[in-house]
């Protein structure tokens, strides 16, 4: 099939990932066309694009999830290809198909590969067939809550209910006992239906507090499939990742090769093309089990980029344009160590609930070792319509110790005012002995984190805040510092004497 060269790309996304893709386009000399909902009119991803097409609406359904509007925008802007980013329609095979039918390249895997590997149940079946280890549980989606009781009884509680279609923790519930099953099943089903339009669930034995380790895969349309090493993503709240690193502190060369081979085997079997991620859980004995495939770019892709030197988004675009992977597996080398901290508009002191408002202060870290993938500017509103990810801070060091030091320095420079963020939580993680030793798993947050550990500002910072607040109040009421200086030394005596004079 002859490939039309990719000169113009529609980025069907928003926020930091849209900005990141736009940057790759600009470096490749490709015209980047942004789309925007009404509330995103002056968002950073619009400002950084070459061109922009309005989608209208505010909710995701009216805009970034609206296939018809997106295809219309692609036609209007006469693009050659569509990049879906992550989230939204990135794992939607129907959208990928519609994009290709409309005559545009979809920058991602073929619809068939999304269907085969994106469906968790199908993917698990395939993994079993290929000899890739999987966690005991259902192979087919559950028929009803009754079947859930039966299977859970067979593999033994605790078990995990998961959406067949989704990811990112939505439609996922831990069930500790029979009693919890009815409401857990109902909630997971409803969440899955709302989030993915598909309420099917499956069930598996819960491996308690595993590590979450994933392998990055790149495949071109000429049969070459590579893995780019692993990412350790075990620091999670609500089953969503917050801190990731590469390489994992527990994976050695041999295990990396084993997991990499498993990932490549799975991808190859499904005719996978473009970037994808094979997720595994690793138990305390370092046994790894296939979890699922994310048939798209991951939020945490930058840590792989920093250690391998490979630009995953640029590779995605090249692959979609029919290009060949330039490296062989033996040439992929990890250099040093990278960490990513996700900065969400959430209040870690209040169960990570979303925090909305205006970014009254928003100052990014700069300088050596740090990369910031960011989607906001000071003065922007953070609203309820979309994912609360503001930015990602990624640091690099020759050693894990160096990249942690760089991250702590960078997080201290990242000043957000007006909206709560996960920065203090990330600072907690980066200072915790378990994390520093690399000895942590997905139970880390539940086990060690308590909101009391946050905002441990020194007494001096509070004094500074008090002086600033008092000065602000004085300015509001027109009082100048020292207006009542006689009170400084001899308060009680002078008080009576001056009472009359100083009352306004």
């Amino acid at each position, binding site marked *: 099939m002859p490939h039309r060269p990719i000169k113009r790309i529609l980025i069907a996304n928003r926020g930091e990932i849209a900005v990141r893709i736009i940057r790759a386009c600009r470096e490749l000399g490709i015209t980047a066309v942004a789309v925007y909902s009404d509330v995103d009119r002056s968002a950073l991803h619009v400002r950084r694009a070459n061109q922009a097409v309005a989608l209208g609406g505010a909710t995701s359904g009216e805009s970034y999830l609206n296939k018809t509007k997106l295809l219309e925008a692609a036609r209007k802007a006469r693009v050659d290809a569509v990049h879906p980013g992550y989230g939204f329609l990135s794992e939607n095979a129907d959208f990928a198909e519609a994009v290709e039918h409309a005559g545009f390249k979809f920058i991602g895997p073929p619809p068939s590969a999304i269907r085969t590997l994106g469906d968790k149940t199908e993917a698990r079946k395939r993994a079993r067939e290929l000899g890739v280890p999987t966690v005991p549980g259902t192979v087919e989606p559950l028929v009803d809550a009754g079947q859930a009781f039966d299977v859970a009884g067979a593999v033994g509680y605790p078990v995990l209910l998961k959406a067949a279609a989704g990811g990112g923790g939505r439609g996922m519930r831990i069930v500790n006992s029979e009693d919890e099953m009815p409401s857990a099943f109902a909630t997971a089903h409803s969440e899955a239906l709302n989030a993915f339009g598909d309420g099917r669930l499956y069930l598996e034995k819960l491996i308690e507090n595993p590590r979450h380790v994933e392998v990055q895969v790149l495949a071109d349309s000429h049969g070459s499939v590579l893995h780019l090493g692993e990412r350790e993503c075990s620091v999670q709240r609500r089953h969503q990742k917050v801190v990731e690193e590469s390489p994992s502190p527990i994976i050695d060369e041999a295990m990396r090769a084993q997991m990499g081979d498993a990932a490549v085997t799975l991808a190859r079997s499904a005719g996978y093309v473009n970037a994808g991620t094979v997720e595994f859980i690793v138990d305390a004995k370092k046994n790894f089990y296939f979890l699922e495939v994310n048939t798209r770019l991951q939020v945490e892709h930058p840590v792989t980029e920093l250690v391998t030197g490979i630009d995953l988004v640029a590779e995605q675009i090249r692959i979609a344009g029919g290009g060949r992977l330039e490296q062989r597996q033996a040439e992929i080398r990890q250099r040093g160590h990278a960490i990513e901290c996700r900065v969400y508009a959430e209040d870690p002191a209040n169960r990570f609930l979303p925090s909305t408002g205006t970014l009254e202060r928003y100052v990014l870290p700069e300088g050596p070792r740090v990369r910031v993938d960011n989607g906001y500017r000071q003065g922007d509103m953070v609203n309820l319509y979309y994912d609360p990810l503001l930015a990602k801070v990624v640091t690099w060091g020759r050693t894990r110790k160096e990249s942690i030091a760089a991250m702590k320095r960078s997080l201290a420079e990242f000043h957000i005012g007006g909206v709560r963020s996960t920065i203090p939580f990330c600072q907690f993680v980066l200072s915790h002995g378990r994390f520093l030793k690399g000895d942590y798993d997905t139970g880390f947050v539940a086990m060690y984190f308590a909101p009391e550990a946050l905002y441990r500002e020194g007494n001096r*910072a*509070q004094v500074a805040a008090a*002086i600033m*607040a008092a000065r*602000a109040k004085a300015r509001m009421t027109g009082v100048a510092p020292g207006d009542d200086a006689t009170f400084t030394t001899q308060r009680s005596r002078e008080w009576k004497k001056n009472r009359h004079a100083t009352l306004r």
Partner: protein
Amino acid sequence: MEKEPARHIALARNEYLVAINGVRMRVLLNSDGVATVNGVRHAYDLHESPEGGTSLIMDGSVFEVAVLARKRQRADQDGIPDASERIAVSVNGTDFEAAVDDRHSLLVKSLMKTTAHDARSITVRAPMPGLIVRIEVEAGQAISAGQGLLVLEAMKMENEIRALQAGRVKEIFVQSGRAVEKDERLMLIDAE
């Protein structure tokens, strides 16, 4: 000083009571560059910038500071407006929400009657802005601790709000499908 009732504190014109995270500080702005906080004198250097952020150098240490927007005044549990000024200050990237009183606001406070508060009535408030997906109880219904009361959706996540203790639903202020603000009243529970 912390236990002294607010109305008995005599403040100078350039003196303030500042409460941050439950810690009360008495701040005297002696002159431009000197402040006495809880009796300890601090020399500081501050040069305010038109762009908002600046540095406060206090006793030689640097704090990157910014005064954020003045918060709207919050009604307290009983609906009585709080006379304190709410001022948010960013120090080294952390937001501090300060309640600031001067001699005038203290006077206002001392004049306001406080309504007796029924400790057995619990107001359930929205922990975040969101959309009410469904309400799982009815007015008058007896509830047990941990029972789901309603489901709030925000940023595509459903969050179940549960009862902290057993009791009976007295009143429900919202309906399914409604958007609510953070801290908006959702239900009133009579605790057991």
